[in-house]
């Protein structure tokens, strides 16, 4: 007789360094048949575990996770097909490779065995070649299933790692977003006789639109809104850099004045286009509180609207290049006179460029009409309701661009200069 393809080994320590020997669980209540088949399998080079009935077989499957289970059909208590069903019903075991062994091989019996969970059939009278062929075929299937399981487990592990990483990144992003939001002014009264409210909704966690209202000097309120092109972390970082430039102490040092035109001219030098063509638009205003005179300048930013109760409402902007488009130019300030109860709105283009589902933009005219319709309401109500109306136009809550809307109201009956003097 020719030497078998595999060495006959049933010592688990033998051949340890070699490829792991496939393990076959043989479940048969008939001891003689079991010993005979086990011998045949061992001679074919497999490691064999034996169990004398269905219950012991199931326990061995759970304990040993064999590569292949060969089950006798007829057994007292739990028969072969019932063990098959138990295996398929168990999430841990259901991918086991199972061959049913029977003395009969009637077609209807084979059909029943397959329908109850067997993967293949083996006749007790099968030749050595057939046993070898079926066992090898079943082990190939088993190896493939195990490979799929390993891949699935690897994917699960990778997914868990990625999820954890994503959670970490989202947490960091949220911290950055909180930091950026902390740079925004507190709603309330930034100076005597002036109230201020705002709404802010970045399109991503981090926005490139930022604004500020703060006291510049003893009688002056500085206001600005900036828009960094692009979105996300890079835009937010650049926006914070420009915000740092626009701090009162820095302006006093590097510009030497709070004139909006001079501030924007200096910013135009200091913030050139990036290599990717990213840039800022900026609107800067300075409100002289005693006289309520507003001087302002813009670099490509069109977002300031003066809603005057007694005077003329107007958009405080003119065509101008964004920062960095032409480093050689200077920007001039213009002026507007505010009256008591006038409202000055600073806003990002994201609000009036909100598209309807058909693509039509909300537009500055509709925005202006909405702001004007809230003349009798509080500033906070006006801003909140205008945001709501924009969302209704959008028919959604997420704007495609950052949205900022800030309102400043010169309170009725105040005469800051006299009060202060």
């Amino acid at each position, binding site marked *: 007789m020719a030497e078998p393809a595999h060495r006959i080994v049933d010592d688990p320590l033998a051949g340890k360094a070699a490829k792991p020997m496939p393990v076959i669980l043989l479940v048969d209540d008939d001891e003689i048949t079991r010993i005979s088949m086990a011998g045949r399998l061992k001679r074919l080079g497999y490691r064999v575990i034996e169990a004398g009935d269905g219950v012991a077989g199931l326990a061995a499957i759970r304990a040993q996770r064999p590569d292949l289970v060969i089950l006798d059909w007829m057994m007292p208590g739990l028969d072969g097909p019932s063990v098959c069903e138990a295996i398929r019903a168990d999430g841990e075991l259901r991918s086991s490779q199972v061959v049913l062994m029977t003395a009969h091989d009637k077609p209807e019996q084979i059909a029943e065995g397959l329908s109850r969970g067997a993967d293949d059939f083996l006749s007790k009278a099968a030749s050595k070649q057939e046993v070898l062929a079926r066992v090898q075929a079943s082990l190939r299937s088993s190896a493939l299933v195990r490979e799929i399981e390993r891949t699935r487990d690897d994917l699960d592990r990778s997914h868990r790692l990625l999820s954890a990483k994503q959670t970490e990144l989202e947490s960091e992003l949220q911290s950055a977003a909180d930091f950026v939001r902390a740079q925004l002014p507190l709603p309330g009264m930034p100076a005597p006789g002036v109230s201020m409210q705002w709404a802010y909704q970045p399109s991503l966690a981090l926005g490139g639109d930022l604004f500020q209202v703060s006291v510049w000097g003893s009688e002056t309120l500085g206001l600005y809104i900036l828009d960094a092109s692009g979105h996300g972390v890079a835009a937010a970082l650049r926006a914070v850099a420009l915000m740092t430039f626009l701090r009162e102490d820095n302006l006093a040092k590097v510009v030497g004045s709070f004139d909006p035109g001079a501030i924007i001219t200096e910013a135009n030098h200091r913030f050139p286009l*990036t290599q990717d063509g990213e840039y800022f638009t900026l609107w800067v205003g300075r409100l002289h509180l005693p006289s309520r005179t507003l001087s302002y300048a813009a670099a490509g930013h069109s977002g300031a609207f003066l809603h005057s109760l007694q005077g003329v409402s107007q958009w405080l902007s003119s*065509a*101008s*290049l964004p920062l960095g488009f032409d480093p050689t130019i200077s920007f001039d300030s213009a002026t507007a006179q505010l009256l008591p109860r006038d409202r000055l709105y600073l806003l990002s283009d994201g609000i009036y460029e909100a598209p309807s589902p058909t693509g039509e933009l909300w537009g500055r005219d509709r925005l202006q009409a909405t702001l004007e319709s809230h003349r009798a309401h509080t500033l906070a109500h006006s801003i909140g309701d205008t945001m709501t109306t924009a969302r209704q136009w959008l028919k959604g809550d997420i704007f495609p661009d950052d949205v900022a809307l800030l309102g400043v109201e010169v309170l009725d009956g105040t005469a800051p200069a006299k009060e202060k003097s």
Partner: protein
Amino acid sequence: MQITERRIGQSIILDLTGELSYANRTTFKAAVERSKRAGCRHLILNMQGVRFLDSSALGTLALLAQSFPAAQGMVSLLNPQSYVKEIITLANLHQILPVYNSEQDALAGSRLPAAG
């Protein structure tokens, strides 16, 4: 965005169709680079078929204006329409990039530096 290139004398006209935005700026920049390498003296961006221009594209155009050295030639815009024209006007882009309303004028514009 679709870009087709036409060479007329020392000028290259890029006929742009669709949206000029962040999403397709790589394609746009590649087409511009090809034109530069081809020794183009006047790059004319035909905006007639462009229906949308986002802020990123504005930056790209400004960068293009800065990166096309005067000694090597010029860049201009041709026939921007409605919304795009409005954006270009609002951003004052015409201050750094000449805007022509007809191809003839644009091509005539391209001959001026050579004549001067």
